[in-house]
C-alpha cells in the first residue's frame, strides 16, 4: 500500500481506491477522456433545458440549414435543430449504455456467481448456458428481442443487456473460483460466516476490479449496438433521434448537405472513443502489470 506523509509528519496509508484513482489519473489520455465524458453527460442533461429548441420543433424556414447563428450545427431535412438532435441522441445513447450495463451486471453477477460458488453439476449446466450465449449471433438476437418486446428505449437496452452478459458471467465465475480457494475465505468459513456473508463481504469486493472494467467496456459496446439497430431501422422509434438513425438519413444527403451526416458521425465517434479510453485507463489502473 502506498504511503504518504501527512502535514504533521505521520505516515498515512492510502486506501486501495485512492491508489487506483491516482494510478488512473496519472494516465493523461484517460484523465482527459474522463473529463470529456463529464462534459458530455452535463450536455445531455442541461443543453435541452436551456436551449430555445426541442428535438421536435420544426422550422420550415431552416430546412437543410447549414450551421449558422440561430442553429449552431444547422438543421436536418425537417428543419429540426441539429444540436438538439445530437444532444438527445447522446442522452438516449447514455441511457441505453448504462441501462444495458446494469442488466448485464445483474445477470452476469448472478449466473457467474452461482456457477462459480456452487461448482459441481450446477456449474457444469450454467457453463454450458454461458457457452451457448457466447455462440449466439448477438446482434441478430437483439433484433429478434426487439421484435418481441417492442421498440422503446427501455426494451432496447433490456434486449442489449439480455444478449451481452456472457463475458461478464464468465469473468465473475472465474474470479469467484479463484477467490473461493484463498485462505481468508477458508478462515471465514472456519469462523462460522454464512454463505451469504462470504459471498457479499469476502468474494464480491475482490471481484470488483474486473467487473468495473467489464462494465466500462460494456457502455460503448451497448451504444454501438443501439446505433446499429437504429441504422437497420429497428432502434429507437422516430421522431426520437438516435445516432444510427441520423446517420442513415444523413447519408441520403451526403453529396448536397454533408453537415447532416458529418456532425452525427463525429459526435458519435468522439463519445465512443472517450468511453473506450476510460475503459482502457481503468483496466491499466486496476492491473498495473499490464502496462507495457
Amino acid at each position: 500500500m502506498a504511503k504518504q506523509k501527512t502535514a504533521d509528519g505521520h505516515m498515512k496509508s492510502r486506501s486501495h481506491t485512492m491508489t487506483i484513482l491516482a494510478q488512473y489519473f496519472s494516465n493523461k489520455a484517460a484523465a482527459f477522456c474522463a473529463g470529456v465524458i463529464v462534459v458530455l453527460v452535463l450536455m445531455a442533461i442541461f443543453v435541452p433545458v436551456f436551449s430555445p429548441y426541442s428535438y421536435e420543433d420544426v422550422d420550415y424556414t431552416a430546412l437543410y440549414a447549414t450551421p449558422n447563428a440561430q442553429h449552431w450545427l444547422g438543421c436536418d431535412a425537417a428543419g429540426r435543430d441539429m444540436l438538439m438532435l445530437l444532444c438527445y441522441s447522446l442522452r438516449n445513447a447514455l441511457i441505453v449504455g448504462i441501462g444495458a450495463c446494469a442488466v448485464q451486471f445483474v445477470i452476469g453477477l448472478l449466473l457467474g456467481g452461482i456457477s462459480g460458488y456452487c461448482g459441481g453439476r450446477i456449474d457444469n449446466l450454467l457453463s454450458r448456458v454461458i457457452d451457448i450465449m457466447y455462440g449466439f449471433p448477438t446482434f441478430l438476437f437483439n433484433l429478434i428481442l426487439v421484435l418481441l418486446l417492442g421498440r422503446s428505449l427501455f426494451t432496447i437496452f433490456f434486449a442489449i443487456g439480455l444478449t451481452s452478459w456472457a463475458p461478464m458471467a464468465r469473468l465473475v465465475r472465474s474470479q469467484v473460483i479463484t477467490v473461493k480457494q484463498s485462505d481468508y475465505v477458508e478462515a471465514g468459513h472456519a469462523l462460522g460466516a454464512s454463505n451469504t456473508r462470504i459471498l457479499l463481504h469476502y468474494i464480491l469486493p475482490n471481484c470488483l476490479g474486473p467487473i468495473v472494467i467489464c462494465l466500462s467496456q460494456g457502455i460503448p459496446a451497448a451504444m454501438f449496438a443501439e446505433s446499429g439497430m437504429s441504422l437497420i431501422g429497428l432502434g429507437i422509434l422516430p421522431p426520437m433521434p438516435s445516432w444510427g438513425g441520423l446517420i442513415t438519413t444523413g447519408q441520403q444527403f451526403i453529396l448536397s448537405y454533408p453537415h447532416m451526416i458529418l456532425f452525427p458521425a463525429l459526435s458519435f465517434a468522439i463519445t465512443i472513443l472517450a468511453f473506450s479510453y476510460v475503459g482502457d485507463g481503468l483496466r491499466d489502473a486496476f492491473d498495473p502489470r499490464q502496462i507495457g
Partner: protein
Amino acid sequence: MFKYFLKRLGYMFLAVLVISAITFGLLQLAPGNYLETQRLLEKTMTDATVSEQMKEAWEKFYDLDKPAIYRYGKFLVNAVQGKFGPSYKYPTQNIEDIIARTLPISARLALMAIAVALVVGIPLGIIAAIRQNRILDRIVMFVSMLGSSIPAYVLAVLLSWALGVALHLLPVIGWGAPVNYVLPVVALALGPIGTVTKYTRSTLVETLNQEYIKVARAKGGSFFQVTFKHALRNSLIPLITVVGPMAASLTVGTVFVENMFAIPGLGQYYASAAINRDYPMVMATTVIFALLVMGMNLLVDFIHAFLDPRVKKSLTQKGG
C-alpha cells in the same frame, strides 16, 4: 486431440440447435406478422386489401395452419439437408438460393478485410513494439485505438465523405466494379487493423523481454536478426486467436456496411428480413451466421493447436 475437436464439433451443433429453437420460439411469441406489416405498407400506396381466401392460401403455402412444433420440425429436417424453402418476401425463390448468391459477397468483403488487417496491422504492430513508448509508438497506438473503437459504419461515413465527396477519388455508391470494394473493405478493415496492431505490439513487447532474446542478443545477434527471426516468429502464433472473434464482429460489420453502401450481400437481406418479419429468412440467416461464427472459432482453435504444441498439450490434458 482429434477427440477433443470432435467433442467441440458436437457441442457446436448442439448450440446451433438450441439457438435455432430459441429464435423460433421468440419469433412465435413476437406480436404482429408479415401480412400485417405488408398491409400497413401497401395501404399507403394502394387501397388493396387481402381477401380471406388469399390469406388462407398464403397460410397454407407456408404451413401456418399447422402447429408451430410441426413447422419447427420441418425446418430442422430441411435445414439439415441445406434447404430452407421460400421466404415470405420472395415466395418464388428458395432461401438457400438467395444465400448461395449473397453469402459469397459478404464473405468476400469480410475475408478481404481480414487480409488487409493482417497485412497492415502486423507491420504497424512491429513498428510500435520496436519504438516502444516513443512518439511513433504513441501515434500508431492512437490510430489503432481510433480504428478499433469507432464502429465500421461511422468510419464508412467519414471515409466516403473525405474520399468520395471532398476529394472525388472514389465512387460513394454503386456496386459491381472492383473499385466499389475499396471503401467498404477499408471501412470494415480499420477495426481489425486496430486489433491486430495492438495485439502484435503487446505480444512482441512481451517476447522481446524474454530471457532467450537476451541470450540471442548476448551471443551477438544483430537487432534485426533477433527481432525478426527470434522474437517475431513466436509472437505471431497467438495472433491467430484474435482472428476468430474478429470474424464474428465482421459478420455484424457487414450487415451495417452493406446497408450503408447498398451492397447486395447476405447482411442486407438479414436486416430487411428482420424489419419485414420475414421469419423463414430470419431463421435461415440466424442459423447460418451462428454456424459461421462458431465454425470460425473452432477452426482458429484447431489451427492454433496445430501450430503451437503447448496449446495442443493443454487441450489433451484437459481430459481430451
